[in-house]
């Protein structure tokens, strides 16, 4: 990841190094495009008449957005959240550069267990534990996985 150095310099000026907020901001860099790609295809699948009917019924822009559009693409939001969570959860590169001690995410916490004498059993136990949130996330979206993520007219 070539951007790490300038991001590190930029973040150190704002005191964002070694803080979860900093990592979250950097993860937006790859997660935002993923979310936009997924959600765009879901929003595209909403028929245009859907919006026009809502406007004829007297809904304003924001009201249409929250009352109609968001419920209509809810599965898409779930799927986007799933992928963003996973990509963010397993990310290593930025986490390594932007954190030292206190702000370590799980990947780096595991890495920190490798010392002069490493107990592989403990590392593996930690790895198993680190899988749990991901597995829970898969469990939450299992319905969407089975339906194939798609809006059916």
């Amino acid at each position, binding site marked *: *990841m*070539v*951007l790490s*150095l*300038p*991001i590190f*310099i*930029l973040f150190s000026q704002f005191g964002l190094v070694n803080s979860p907020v900093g990592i979250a*901001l*950097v993860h*937006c*860099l*790859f997660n*935002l*495009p*993923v979310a*936009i*790609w*997924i959600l*765009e*295809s879901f929003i595209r699948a909403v028929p245009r008449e859907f919006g*026009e009917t809502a*406007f*004829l019924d007297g809904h304003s*822009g924001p009201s249409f957005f929250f009352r109609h559009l968001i419920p209509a693409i809810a599965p898409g939001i779930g799927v986007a959240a799933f992928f963003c969570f*996973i*990509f963010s*959860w*397993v*990310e*290593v*590169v930025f986490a390594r550069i932007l954190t030292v001690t206190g702000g370590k995410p*799980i*990947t780096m916490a*595991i*890495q920190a267990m490798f010392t002069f004498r490493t107990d*592989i059993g403990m*590392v*593996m136990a930690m*790895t198993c534990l*680190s*899988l749990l*949130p*991901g*597995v829970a*996330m*898969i*469990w939450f979206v*299992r*319905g969407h*996985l*089975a*339906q*194939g*993520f*798609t809006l059916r007219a």
Partner: protein
Amino acid sequence: MRIHDNRAWFLIAPALLLLGPVGALPLLAVINYGFHDIFTLARPHWVEVRWFTEILGSDRFLASLGRSLMFSTLALAIQLPLGIGVALLLLGTGKRAVWGLMLVALPLVVPWNMIPMLWLGVIDTQTGLLGPGLAALGFDWKFTGWHTWALILAVDSWHWLGLVVVLAYAGLSAIPPAYRQAAAIDGASRWPASASPGTGISCWRSWSSGSRRRWCCRCRSSSSSASSDW
């Protein structure tokens, strides 16, 4: 009546506000640094395109670029057909497909720095699950080049296959069942390779036109995984 309203463009403002500082600015900085000789960041020295000409003239750089391209090509060549095949198999299992999907999605949540650890454990020649058997077959990833390639490709496929399967399953299940029934009546089998190309190609077309954008996302992840593996 058609209502034209361009205010929706304002909805991309948050994304731009976010990607500006963490995306565009660092990228510009990287490009800027590329034209400097930087011993300390306080005193960069302008060297025009010297680094670029040096790198592009270097055989080792070109060789490594070739290896990366080769790796990505091989990874795609393995993972796309395999993922689509698994998705087709799962599609045939009906409601039980959700278990298969959850199973193949599992490797996706393994932290990246743990993947090599897990696999080194599995192929350990003394204690690994597969190691002794592979060693008996003459597999030695440390000293034989193509064995290393095979191992890395296997690990990469293990990690990313779930994504291909999930996306392929999403696209395939969007094809209306009537479409598949019509193709079956026309005498096509489920598998594109073994049958008249008709279904295969038409299925592929209807499916790929819908999800080409998702493949861009997939390619991105493949290349990023490749770069983190090397």
